[in-house]
């Protein structure tokens, strides 16, 4: 436990974080791609047809992991936001903001694939069903966080404000989802829940799904860390460790910030 805490503490230092990200990034990406390839091959080519929906159900191998990631990343953003606000750790600020576009992308993919799935199943690209609607609202929440971050000039203040919004959003997400679900049953009391699959899922269909869940997390790690690295460089530009990285000589002054021109 102690080692874990110590590791987190060290990750708070920008140079350590940068080195960690640099080392592990390729691993995350390649393992994500590898697992995705295996999982999709299995899911798209090898798993048996669903007795109710035929081939079209296969899109769940992209739709469901994307939806899971949309929610998971929002949780991660809120946790980073909490750490950033309470302990003012720069890396937490950066990781929260770096995660936002990835989460938004996954949510958009979930929305698009859900919509594509709807076409053969309901005959239309869009219905106001509970899952699609609450995914759409989640996408709006993501846009709000990203928009707030981009609208404030001071980078650190912007990251903390966006982090607080993520926390507020997180608290609201279960409430929103429940209310949309409630709304849906209110207006379609007898409809079949078409986004739910057959009640027991065959193991041969489950494994690719779980594999995709792992793969998407690895992909998220790669994407967020890459983005975070760029943000760290930007935020710390002019400091000695960044200059060393770029191959430039160290600055002679003892202060680690660039002094402002009068």
């Amino acid at each position, binding site marked *: 436990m102690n080692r874990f805490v110590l590791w987190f503490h060290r990750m708070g230092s920008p140079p350590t974080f940068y080195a960690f990200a640099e080392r592990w990034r390729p691993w995350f990406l390649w393992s994500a791609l590898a697992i995705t390839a295996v999982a999709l091959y299995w899911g798209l080519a090898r798993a048996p047809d669903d007795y109710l929906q035929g081939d079209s159900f296969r899109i769940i191998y992209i739709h469901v992991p994307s939806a899971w990631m949309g929610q998971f990343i929002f949780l991660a953003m809120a946790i980073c936001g909490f750490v950033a606000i309470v302990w003012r750790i720069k890396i937490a600020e950066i990781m929260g903001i770096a995660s936002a576009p990835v989460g938004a992308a996954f949510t958009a993919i979930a929305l698009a694939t859900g919509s594509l799935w709807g076409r053969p199943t309901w005959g239309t690209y869009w219905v106001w069903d509970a899952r699609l609607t609450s995914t759409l609202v989640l996408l709006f929440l993501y*846009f709000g966080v990203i928009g707030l971050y981009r609208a404030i000039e001071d980078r650190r*203040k912007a990251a903390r404000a966006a982090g*607080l919004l993520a926390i507020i*959003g997180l608290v609201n997400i279960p409430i929103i989802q429940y*209310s949309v679900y409630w709304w849906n049953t209110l207006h379609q009391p007898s409809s079949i829940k078409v986004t739910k699959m057959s009640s027991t899922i065959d193991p041969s269909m489950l494994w690719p799904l779980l594999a995709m869940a792992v793969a998407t997390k690895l992909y998220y790690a790669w994407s967020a860390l890459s983005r975070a690295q760029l943000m760290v460089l930007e935020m710390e530009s002019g400091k000695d460790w960044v200059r060393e990285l770029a191959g430039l000589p160290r600055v002679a002054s003892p202060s680690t910030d660039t002094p402002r021109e009068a």
Partner: protein
Amino acid sequence: MRPGTPSTAALALLRRDLLLLWRQRADALNPLLFALMVATLFPLALGPEAGMLSRVAGGIVWVTVVLANLLSLDALFRGDAEDGSLDQLAVSGQPLALLAGARILAHWLGTGLPLTLVAPLLAYMLGLERAALPVLVAALALGTPLLSLVGACCAALTVAMRRSGILLALLVLPLTVPVLIFGAGAVEAAATGGDPSAALLFLAAGLALALPLAPLGCAAAIRIGTA
């Protein structure tokens, strides 16, 4: 009342805000006029057929209230931020959450409550079932404070920005979805002869949750913003 205690400070802030509202009372009418105008747009767009309108009346009133509430949210903290009053509040050492709560109460008294009182008029014009009118008022009485509370958190977050307007709407509207769903759901239940109590209870629960939490969120957002 000794000057300088938290309760004195909060009450004084409430009093100041109500006084300001009174001084600018022409502006204070704007959300109401906006609501009236928007409610008029719907029949113009959908056609005046009574049967159709009365079915959607509850929903139209709710959407109108949500949008009208949005109008006055931006000014909630911006005025104080611009003239240095927010700094004074932050520096006073008084619990910022309590002061934020006073501010939110003033906002509701100035916007939410008037909208709740005007809503029956709008609902009548749109032909809502008579039986549903009391439920509409009850739902709005529970829902408009919720809208003020949740909206205030977002308004406090956008204080750090120069221009806002649309961004504030983008932040607030997703968070108002549950209020809208339960509020309009209650009215619909009452209009179709069903039981609105479940929806009303959800609204009450939400209000009970937001009352202590939202001022804390506002205070945190203000501290981030003044930094």
